[in-house]
């Protein structure tokens, strides 16, 4: 199962994400997010971060999750490559993420992300498989 694939979206980029569970979907979405910014293979797991988030709906939770990663990247220059959702329900999640601080000698920056949008946002379960679509403003 391809965990995510990128979508053409004009001057921006979108991603279609799959997951056998909601947790897996959120983990795959996070990996896809950092794949836009850098080459995750270059990101070592030197530090770990615990994240707790809330959302009014599962869709808002997904956007909040990705926005949190964007915030950590912009404010701490934190690149993350491994994600584990410890607990998730329709309105909240607890997770662990691993990665390291940006190092200009080792981490290529492909492009910067301005925002995680609500445009054409989709999140639903279909025959046991979780699917999502998110568009990012570049």
């Amino acid at each position, binding site marked *: 199962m391809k965990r995510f694939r990128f979508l053409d979206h004009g001057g921006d980029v979108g991603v279609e994400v799959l997951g056998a569970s909601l947790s897996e979907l959120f983990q795959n979405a996070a990996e896809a997010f950092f794949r836009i910014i850098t080459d995750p293979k270059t990101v070592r797991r030197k530090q770990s971060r615990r994240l707790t988030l809330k959302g009014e709906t599962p869709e808002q939770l997904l956007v909040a999750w990705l926005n949190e990663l964007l915030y950590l990247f912009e404010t701490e220059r934190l690149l993350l490559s491994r994600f584990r959702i410890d607990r998730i329900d329709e309105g909240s999640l607890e997770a662990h993420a691993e990665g390291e601080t940006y190092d200009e000698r080792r981490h290529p920056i492909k*492009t*910067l992300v301005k*925002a995680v949008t609500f*445009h054409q946002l989709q999140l639903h379960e279909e025959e046991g498989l979780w699917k999502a679509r998110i568009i990012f403003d570049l």
Partner: protein
Amino acid sequence: MGEEREILLERLDAWRWRIPRAGKMRTDGLIFADQKMIQAIRKDNSLQQVVNVATLPGIVGPSLAMPDIHSGYGFPIGGVAAFDASSGVVSPGGVGYDINCGVRLMQSSLNRRDVEKKIPLLVATLFKNIPSGVGSKRKDLRLGKKELAGVLTQGVRWAVDRGFGSAEDLAHIEAQGCIPGADSDRVSDRAMERGYPQLGTLGSGNHFVEVGFVEEVFDTEAASAFHLEKDQVTLTIHTGSRGLGHQVCDDYIRVMLQASRRYGIELPDPQLCCAPLDSEEGKHYLGAMACAANFAFVNRQMITHWTREAFGEVFQLTPGQLRLSLVYDVCHNIAKMETHEIGGRKVQVCVHRKGATRAFPPGHAEIPAEYRKVGQPVLIPGDMGRYSYVLSGTDLATQETFASTCHGAGRLLSRHQAKKAARGRSILKELAKMGIIVKSASTGTLEEEIPEAYKDVEEVVRVVHEAGISRKVARLRPLGVIKG
């Protein structure tokens, strides 16, 4: 979202098309475009977005679309919509994520011949002086969170007070570099935290700093008023409010989703979420938006300062000799409270311009005195391989478009398509062969921003010129470009 059948378009003349008011629309749609463009415009859902905007409460005049219109998030990009100050709404989607993404143009005492051999050095020096990479900072800008509030409420005056510009710069910026009503209490901690490390940074995507020259003058009187002449070296800066603005937009989309429900505003698309201008939510958004806009003005001012330093370093000239002066600085993504005359009465409105530029006419009190005879400068960037335009505002724009016009070329290829087209090619070498030196901080950006990924800005400019809502003044060509 919207009906399946084709949206009815009435051709008014060679450059104007109307979507007659129908269904839930409160007003007509009015699109500026030529025949060829309309066919392309029909292919994405931007016309439906023009229709959707027309349904919002308190809209004054038509739901407008400039010739560079394309599909956006809720509101189309290249859209203009004005709302009555007492009965209308304000919407973050009508401004965009990159609040006050805009363009600044400078002119110098240098001639193209003076600089051509030194372009590679100039590009390298600009790249060194202007923070463009992730986490890069200038040592002369040590900004704490407390100081950021000053940036947000004072705009460019904050920078001038600290020696990063002059009073003359201030006079040549839209709103004198400070949108009134900025309230830093309305900006979230998260937005502040994203903002303070990024002040003075370029950002990636379609942002750039470009050294160019005036290739052709179309209107000698206006060009002369703007201090532009053939072969003169120019400097263009295109950037916005960085993470601070993006976060403000994000924060207020959430606020407005709730507000739309609270005030019973029917939304054909949730991304049109809004609140009445005279509501708490509406005022708070405007207060925060002004902060983000001022951040962007200061951003362009800091980059201006470091650009002046770079030129000084490379050409070994004093600022007095270089005379790198501001022609003008305009917003492309903004909501402005303005007074316009509608049916003989003066009406206060909130004009949303998302991917559109203000274009005040000759005689307008808000433009610098030396421009009043010819109108406000309008800066229209093209792609890095071709050209950009300088236009001037007209009376007709004031009558028809709330003094608004286009903002740029718009994309032709998606990022993925552009990357595919660029595969196996050395874009840097191709541009160098054309006499254009480019340096980019991020690895993906160059391929995604190749000239052929963009429409020809000349076509967009031709429409606004022929329609009479702007006048062509000059065409600029690039010599050197830096990208974040």
